[in-house]
């Protein structure tokens, strides 16, 4: 009974500390919300508005027909019509256009003679992902143009050709935003939790109030519980708000169950609180707490699969990544939102979190005791 009373007293103090300062209150929910919406819109791999220039030496009806197809595609935006070869280098260098489409002077004649013709494309490789995808789109446009030529009788029906019929599961329109936004909430709430938890103990140490805590009738275990609760509460609250935001604002489908979502998030937040407490037990100043959190957050987010696939990493890095808690919540969130997983289905993805949480919390508790005397 007394134990519970003591813990409640500590928890009340922690919450008061955060909620009394107006700026502190704002920082818990305001910036995370802003970030969620801004980054939700910024995070996209879908191409839009790709600026291109053309150098049409043929100026024939066929070349214009092809170029109209490119313009009509919707993701390309014509910025310039170049008049000479020299302008090509300059245009790409200056980033005035990311692609240059060059049609040779004999384009129409060759086609009318029944010979093969080529269209040259020059792409700016400084953003390779954009270049590859844009070239892919152009490839499909060329294929469709070829089919048009056959229909117009300007080319023999292409012989044994292969026709690619493709379909995408779970995300028919290949909206990359769904991929990112479903996981974004987990990332932002993680940052909030880690910073909050790691800074709270470090702040007490720096101000000397930690020593006062130690002479109070609290055991190190109770201090640990008291310090972790605000982080867990605010973290879970933020994460659930972001999940709602993803569905209601960004129209990301939610095909799984609420139970799976809450359990996965809870496990993850508790793990992150454990890591935050670990960092804070090793820090004596707030700067160390902040930097320590960062040294964890940066690799964890980068290797989590948020923006780039874990499958692309070298084998040794994938093995090391097995201890990265963020990786598991990202997979769990995506499976729940987009693939419709319920608790049993998502469990194989999240049980490692239980393991990591128990290790970090035990370590943090031990270090607390060790560094408290």
């Amino acid at each position, binding site marked *: 009974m007394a134990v519970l009373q003591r813990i409640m007293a500590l928890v009340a103090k922690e919450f008061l500390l955060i909620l009394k*300062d107006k*700026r502190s209150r704002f*920082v818990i929910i305001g910036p995370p919300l802003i*970030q969620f919406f801004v*980054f939700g819109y*910024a*995070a*996209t*791999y*879908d191409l*839009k*508005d790709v600026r291109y220039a053309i150098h049409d030496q043929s100026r024939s009806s066929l070349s214009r027909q092809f170029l109209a197809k490119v313009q009509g595609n919707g993701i390309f935006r014509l910025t310039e019509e170049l008049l000479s070869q020299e302008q090509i280098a300059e245009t790409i260098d*200056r*980033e005035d256009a990311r692609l240059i489409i060059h049609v040779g002077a004999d384009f129409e004649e060759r086609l009318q003679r029944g010979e*093969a013709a080529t*269209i*040259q494309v020059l*792409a*700016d*490789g*400084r953003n*390779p992902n*954009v*270049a590859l995808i844009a*070239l892919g789109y152009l*490839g499909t446009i*060329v294929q469709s143009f*070829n089919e048009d030529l056959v229909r117009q009788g*300007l*080319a*023999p029906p*292409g012989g*044994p*050709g*292969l*026709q*690619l019929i493709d379909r995408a*599961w*779970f*995300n*028919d329109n*290949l*909206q990359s935003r*769904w*991929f990112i936004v479903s996981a974004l909430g987990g990332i932002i709430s993680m*940052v909030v939790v880690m910073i909050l938890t790691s800074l709270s103990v470090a702040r007490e140490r720096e*101000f000397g109030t930690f020593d006062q805590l130690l002479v109070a009738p609290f055991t190190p275990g109770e201090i640990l519980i008291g310090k972790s609760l605000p982080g867990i509460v605010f973290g879970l609250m933020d994460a659930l708000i972001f999940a709602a935001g993803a569905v209601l604002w960004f129209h990301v489908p939610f095909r799984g169950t609420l139970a799976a979502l809450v359990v996965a998030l809870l496990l993850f937040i508790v793990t992150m609180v454990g890591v935050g407490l670990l960092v804070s037990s090793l820090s004596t*100043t*707030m*700067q*160390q707490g*902040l*930097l320590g959190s960062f*040294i964890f957050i*940066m690799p964890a987010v980068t*290797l989590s699969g948020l*923006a*780039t696939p874990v499958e*692309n990493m070298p084998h040794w*890095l994938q093995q090391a990544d097995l201890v990265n808690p963020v990786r598991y919540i990202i997979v769990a969130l995506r499976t729940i939102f987009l693939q419709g997983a319920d608790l049993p289905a998502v469990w194989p993805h999240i049980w490692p979190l239980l393991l990591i949480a128990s290790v970090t919390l035990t370590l943090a508790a031990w270090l607390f005791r060790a560094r408290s005397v």
Partner: protein
Amino acid sequence: MTNGLFFMRMRGILRKEFLQILRDPSSIALAVVMPLVLLVIFGYGVNLDAEHVPVALLAEEQSSFSADLVSRFELSETFAVHRVHSMTEAEQLLESRRVDGIIRLQDNFTEKLQTAGSAPVQLIVNGVDANRARLIQSYVAAVLGQWSAMRRAAGDPAAHAPVSLVSRVWFNEEVESRNFMVPGLITLIMTLIGILLTALVIAREWERGTMEAMLVTPLRRIDILLGKIIPYYLLGMLGMAMSVAVAVTVFDVPYRGSITALFLLSSLFMLASLGFGLLLSAAIRVQFVAAQVSIVAGFLPAFFLSGLIFDLESTPRFIQVVSHIVPARYFITISHTLFMAGDVWSVLLPNGLVLALMAVFFLSMAYRKMSKRLEG
């Protein structure tokens, strides 16, 4: 006489700042250890290219045509083929994410080729990662295109495609996403050092009361500010130089610009970031809050809104507008050009100018916010 005093004051405060940095190893860890860790992770871990993509291949027919196509996929470096014998098996693999796509040649493949003139090849991708799905689609299309080209070369007159696309990629011919990511990472590292370290530095002095002690010294505001800028500038440039060296030697990222341009432009970016961090610290005065604001307003925008990973031009208009106030955005453009293209002044100059203006703005605002009065 005044000059001599100035140097005396600078010597004093610089010595204090350097001692403080040396005595707290976390600053050095951030400037030296963190960049190395990040470089390793980004260099090896972050890769948007699709290689050895696991796909399930279902060839319902055994014929020379289908065998030819199947071997093309198996021999290609882009794909890691798992042969399956039924659609159910393939779908299970896709569901459990053991493969990212299913390629299916139906049992009337040869028949359709010879009678209808075209045979369908079915591709099902896991759309959860849309970007990867698109890349897989274009790679499969490329393999099919190669198959058609081979048949044309073998003299099959019917496999004639009237128009074909010849493409060339400039500046990054190998189309390596690493050449794109690593220069961007260097921007991120400099932002981290510039904003994160300095965001706490002035607030800490206020909280500990040492700022009051400094107020009674003959130090003027400009001396205190310079005393904060110079050591962290040096630390940041050290981190930058080290990162560039590692990028070029260990990761074979090409560097085609000049060292002068790199030094000049990165200094401008460093000063702009430092200015922003110091402004936060001077205005907020509470470490706890300054830390959170620096992450929210400094670091996360540099990650998401600068063009580091997500292409800015494909984002909605208001995002593009907001990105104009993020210093990292300009340096990302500069570093991509410096590394992959060289000294293209038509790109470097306008971006560098904006960075210079931002540096002046943030530093002068920080100066104004630093008051020599207790109430601030």
